[in-house]
């Protein structure tokens, strides 16, 4: 059975880009994936560790055998439910305790249709420690070999790459899909401390995609991790790179569970993106990004400085661009947008005023009330009363 060509055909004929690939760590999250119409599922140890309340990068440390961990929950929690979404195994290729060939056969027997080199050694960035690992024979090359072996067995393969050279190696190994690994992501309850600036990540992915286009045109290209963790950032990748979709773990968990009120549902986003064919390949527009970020994430803690960091431009410059283009300052636009949202909630829901404030990014009730009065000319309580009576 050639799962590789079978899944590629399925993606191209029955599904539409942007493709969504969800990294999961339990049976429950398989159900969430199904409910949210995901295209593929990656069974991964980082997903499992998040279920345990730990950050994704824990998956590259010696607290368990990654392959065993994934195999166990796959067999106990996912496979018995006769899964409809194709399953991809997050394979730790540098594991000297398994016989790769037999292990891959076993996965195939269990009807796991593909593999992805996750966790990858790329979680260890170049430096003293990476050098020491490589001197000890722990190398990216092993991941390439595992993907080649899996490809040879007819398994579907996603090659996770961190640079152009790795992309070339994975293409040569026959990887069906290339996914650019963008590093760890900040934010949320389990986020890491390190994250590439968004603009760097976009440029980095675009460079790798260029290599892929030259070497094997038409290859499916995904991005995974790093700053690609909000709908705004995802739209940004769609409009500024040739990405065909996203692989994500914590990305989706945040949208589905941690802060669902901050985001449209994954389904809605997909509908929006798939219908918006023009979303592709537009020139870089900083103001549009800032505005969209406000619209998508007004409830989060947004600062001009953080946005400027995302875009890798100076805060004063972004401030000037914003004012010139929108006609008001970033802060006044943000506050205005939040108060409009608050007014809607006051009008159409019975949420307490405190809750309404929190829903638009104000943890402090007094601060919210004062700001609302300044912008809308009346207190939140009075506003609700006035609009109820009509």
């Amino acid at each position: 059975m050639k799962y590789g060509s079978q899944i590629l055909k399925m993606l191209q004929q029955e599904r539409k880009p942007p493709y969504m690939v969800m990294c999961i760590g339990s049976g429950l999250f398989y159900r969430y994936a199904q409910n949210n119409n995901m295209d593929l599922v990656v069974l991964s140890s980082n997903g499992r560790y998040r279920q345990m309340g730990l950050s994704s990068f824990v998956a590259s440390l010696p607290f368990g055998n990654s392959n065993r961990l994934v195999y166990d929950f796959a067999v106990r929690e996912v496979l018995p439910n006769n899964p409809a979404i194709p399953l991809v195994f997050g394979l730790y290729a540098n594991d000297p305790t398994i016989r790769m060939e037999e292990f891959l056969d076993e996965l195939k027997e269990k009807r796991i249709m593909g593999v992805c080199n996750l966790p990858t050694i790329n979680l260890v960035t170049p430096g003293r420690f990476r050098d020491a690992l490589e001197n000890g024979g722990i190398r990216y090359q092993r991941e390439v070999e595992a993907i080649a072996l899996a490809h040879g067995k007819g398994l579907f393969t996603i090659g996770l790459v961190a640079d152009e050279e790795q992309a070339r190696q994975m293409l040569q190994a026959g990887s069906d899909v290339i996914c650019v690994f963008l590093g760890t992501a900040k934010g949320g309850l389990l986020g890491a401390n390190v994250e590439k600036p968004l603009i760097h990540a976009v440029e980095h992915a675009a460079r790798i995609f260029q290599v892929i286009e030259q070497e094997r045109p038409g290859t499916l290209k995904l991005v995974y991790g790093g700053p690609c963790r909000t709908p705004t950032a995802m739209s940004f990748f769609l409009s500024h790179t040739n990405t065909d979709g996203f692989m994500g773990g914590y990305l989706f968990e945040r949208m589905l569970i941690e802060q669902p009120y901050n985001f449209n549902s994954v389904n809605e986003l997909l509908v929006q993106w798939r219908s918006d064919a023009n979303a592709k390949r537009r020139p870089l527009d900083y103001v549009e990004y800032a505005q969209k970020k406000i619209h998508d994430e007004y409830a989060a803690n947004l600062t001009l400085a953080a946005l400027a960091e995302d875009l890798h431009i100076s805060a004063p410059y972004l401030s000037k661009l914003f004012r010139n283009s929108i006609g008001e300052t970033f802060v006044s636009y943000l506050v205005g947008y939040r108060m409009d949202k608050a007014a809607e909630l006051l009008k159409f829901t019975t949420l307490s005023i405190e809750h309404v404030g929190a829903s638009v990014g104000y943890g402090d009730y007094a601060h919210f009330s004062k700001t609302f009065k300044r912008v809308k000319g009346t207190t939140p309580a009075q506003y609700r009363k006035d609009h109820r009576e009509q």
Partner: protein
Amino acid sequence: MDGSVKEYLRQAIRTRGRVVMTLVNDPASVERACHMETDLLGVFHTACLHVPLMAGYLPIGDANGTVLEAAGTVLSAAERLPVFAGVCCFDPIRLMGPFLQNLKAQGFSGLVNFPPVGYIDGELRTNMEGRNFGFAREVNTVELAVRNQWLLPLPMVFTPEEGERMVRAGADMLVFHPGFLENDEPAARAALRACRLFTAAVRRLASDAVVLLYVPNYCALQTFEILAEPAPPADGFFLINENAVF
């Protein structure tokens, strides 16, 4: 036990200028180790999984759980030599207090922070420190072991700052790890130089602290011994012998 093991190690350093720890994983390897020149036995999860030391950092096993599993058979066979456990101090899914108590109850004499977090640099280290399972965990583990007289710590550290923190936590025997070395003379000279700075820094804080320089087993110890002759960089060398398990 603690006091006598410490005295035993000081004696070994005085007479031979080195401490050799031989890794074991079962009674047969203990038997083999006893026929080698060795001062200590060590149970590291790498030896149990039959992988090299550097693979100790990889997600291929539960480091602490593996050591605990091997403890029973090893300790019942090891009668003559003190046994040290390799403890992965930054393990976020294990309570260190009960774990150390358990190791003591099984009969371990001491601990080595293995794999040492000090080797990890770059983004992974920043993320680990940010999530509060970095070097501070190793310091806490040593502090716990000393304060409760559970185990004699033999921490492996990479910088003078790390050494100072371990001394403040109560460690009085330290292993300086020079990082990855080529097996040649310039590398050995560089390691000795770094070790001298380390020893000086640690001695300023505790004049009687014992410092050992870790020499990886692929390096020629003789080169180190010859180069160290005029001005020893430390009290002695520390070697990890893997030949009893491979």
